[in-house]
Every structure is written in C-alpha cells, then in structure tokens.
C-alpha cells in the first residue's frame, strides 16, 4: 500500500493559518555555532524544517505544535512559541 507523504498527511489536517505571524523563528547563527547534527531536520514529525543554501528554514504553517524541536535544538536556536490564540493546528480527532 502506498503511504501518504508528510505533506499529503498535513494537507488532511485542519489549520487556522495566522498569515504573517510566524510562531517559529530560526536563529541560524546559533545553529551554525552550536549544532552539528541538525536535529530539527529529522525529529520534526511535520518536516517543518529544511535546509536551503546552508540555512535552516522553518515552514511553520504545517507545525503540529508538539514542541519536540524546542527540546532537541540548542537553547536560543529557535524562537518558538505557540501560535496566537485560536490559530494553528485544530485537531478534529486528536
């Protein structure tokens, strides 16, 4: 059986997108100075993080708000907070 890609899975979810208000900001200077393994690229279930031209980029709209990256990444590498009230992932099953 063909499994869905992560992108296809996320497309099944319901989100209230908070356009123009990213809730994740990556501080690439900290990533470069303190992180060799780029844990964000493999611990995130939603594949929010990718590397583009050597920089870590967060596609925050698909975030499932689990917070795993905030534990796995070096302190200060991410400015991560929950989306504003009412926005973000809306679980219909949970």
């Amino acid at each position: 059986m063909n499994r869905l890609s992560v992108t296809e899975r996320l497309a099944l979810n319901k989100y209230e997108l908070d356009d123009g208000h990213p809730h994740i900001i990556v501080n690439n200077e900290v990533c470069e100075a303190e992180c060799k393994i780029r844990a964000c690229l493999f611990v995130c279930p939603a594949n929010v993080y990718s590397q583009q031209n050597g920089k870590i980029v967060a596609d925050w709209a698909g975030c499932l708000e689990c917070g795993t990256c905030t534990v796995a990444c070096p302190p200060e590498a991410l400015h991560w907070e929950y989306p504003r009230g009412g926005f973000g992932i809306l679980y219909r099953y949970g």
Partner: protein
Amino acid sequence: MSDDKLDVIVVGAGVAGCTVALLLAQQGLEVALIERGPFPGSKNLSGGVLYGQVLHQIIPNFWEKAPVERVITNQAVTFLTETDSVSLDFKTPSFLQKPYNAVSVLRSKFDRWLGEQAEKAGAILIPGIKVERLIREENRIIGIAAGQEEMFADVVIAADGANSFLAQEAGLRQRIPEEHVAVGIKEVIALPQEVIENRFRLEGNEGSAFNIVGSATQGIAGGGFLYTNQESISIGLVIQLADLVQRQKKVSEIFDQFLNHPWIASLIKGGKVVEYGAHLVPEAGLKMIPRLFMDGMVVIGDAAGLTINNGFWVRGMDLAIGSAIAAAEAVVKAHQNRDFSAESLALYRQKLEESFVMADLRTYAHAPHFMQNARLYKRYPQVVSEVFRQIYQQDASPHQPLRQIVREAVRRNNLSLLDLVKDFWNGGRAL
C-alpha cells in the same frame, strides 16, 4: 489588586485543566478556564486509552454521556521483527463490566465534552486566548497576561501540557532535557465500523489496545500503539527523543516503515487517513517531576510530567485527573483559609503523595531506565520470533527440543546468559 479578581485561573483545557476547573466550580469557587485553541480539545492529542475509573469518581457513569469510542476488552503486547509478529493477547469479558477499566477516546471530542461539564458546573471557559506570561508580585504569582489583557486570581493552575512554558517561566522547572521526553506521532485512520469489528473480532462496543515493541521503532527505544475507535483506528509511535537524536533517523520515515510492516499493514488495510498529529510525551516518571507548587501557583497533568509507560500500557490521562483531584482539594482548603502561600499549597503535593498517582509513579520508578535497554527493541523480539518460527516450522528435518531452540536463538542474537539474568532481574524490579 483589581476588584474583579478571580478565585482561580486554570491555564489549559485538557483533561487535567477541565477536571480541576469542574471540581473547583462545584465547590463554589470562581474559576476561569483559559484555552489557547478555539475549543477544549482542539490542541490535544493522546494515543487514546483512558483508564477511566478515577473519572467515574467525579462524573459517575461518564461513559453514558461522554464521547467515548470503545470499551477496551482486548489488551495485547506485540513484538515485531522486520517481517514477523508475535502477540500476547489478553481478552476478558470482565473488562465489559462497569465501571469500565479502560475506554478509547479521541481528545478533540472528549475534552470538548469535559470542558462543557466544567462550564455546566459554573467554570468560565475562555477559549482562543493564549496565555503569554505570568504576573508576579515579588515571588508570588498573582495572575496571567495575554496581549493587552491581564487577569488576576488567588491561584493560577498550570495545566498547559507537556511543554509547560508556564512552569518553566515560574522557575518550577528547567528546560526539558531530551532524555526526559519522547516524540509521539499518530494517524487516525477511518474504517467502517463492521470492518473494525470483523478485523479485530469485536462485538458491539468492545475495543482493542495493542502496545507494540521491536522493529516498530527500528531498534530505537520506544514503541508503537494501535487502538480501535468506533469508526477509526488510532495508530502511532512514541520514540525516545535522546535515542532518536543519537541515531539521527528521520521520525517520519520510521513511521512510514512501521505502517508498512506486514502485520500493521494488514490491520489498517483499506483505511483512509483522516488526521496526522504529534505530541511531546513526558517519559522520565518520578525523575522529571518539577516543583509542583509555589506562592500562588500549582502545576498539574502533563505539565507536571505525570505519565507512566511500562511497555504494557501507557498512562497519562488518569494521572492527570488524579493530579486535578489533589490540586482541587488543596486549592479549596487554601481558599477557606485565605492562604495561598507555598506552605498552604503544599497540601497538593501531600494529597498527590497519598493518591494512586505518586504510588504508581513510585512502583514504576525504574521503568523509564529499563525501557531504555536497547536489547528490548532489537534482540528480544528477534529471539521470540525465531523461537516461535522453529516451534511451528515443519521442514522434514528432525525437530529440536524447545530448550535447544531457545538456547540457539539466544546465542544467534549475541545475548549472553548474563544479559538475560540482568534484564530479567531489572524487568522484575521495574515492572
């Protein structure tokens, strides 16, 4: 101090937050229940088995009204190798007796209902508001702030989940180390009711809960779960973060391979994925419990790290409810005495100590360490599978006695007698 000060502000409408708000409102306290999602449950996710007898104490026969999915009558542990599966499957009609031992739930529906019960009891539900910070007066917590809004109360109850930024802000807890948590990842897969009942041999509202060990996580510490709902299956993995980071494997790919395992694939065949979610799972048990109270504040539920995983089952919601009961008792007492100091709120810790919550956390205090044993995830499932294959395989060559089959499977998988004795001993001690 503002005139419209509340008695209590509860932050987070999960099972812990809704329950404590309900109990406090029942006692006549003025309680605000603040939730960042548009309704209680919209941000919440669990594997989905609720050991609900503790909730029955608060809301008698809750299953008659609450959106529960199925009554868990089948509890199984399944070992997976890359291709094989061995299940130990326990089924008893006694689990159909009320009050039910366990039910499956979907949190978005269940927590919404629980929030409504809190509201009916008189709690003021304030959804769609993210609490951004605590308000202090010297070292005492006196309220919360969200945007331009400030709210004041005698006590703030942090029920804000596994990440509990409030407990961290208050200084009750340090930044979470990766050794203390796992990443939970889950799909809800819709299947017609009769397909679920045929596939899992269920009658009526009976349900199954599988805990899955071994190749599920490709040898990384952790495990899988599969729970039946009325018209869907909850399937997922819980993977220890420190081990994942060390192995540098992509969590979404581990999940894909898990779903493609022949045993899993046959159980979810024909299903339609309807939701994909993730959640941080506190896993360090006793070791990670923060300071639970301070002047004007207590911490409950996942925010306090109250979960247990012993390989046979994973529990969190019932412990959350247990902590809500203990916190409610302490806060009511504090309210009567008009004393919201740490000394007064220490009653919460004492009540928690006296309850099943801390008793069970102590009973399974060694479980987190035991569950980090790599042999559990790779070699033992392999040994069990090889032993069963040889028991059943008839290939016209002479059969070996069972003791010989076991001995050779153990040797082939590089397990020493010392490992076996040690693991058996530690398992006996931890579980």
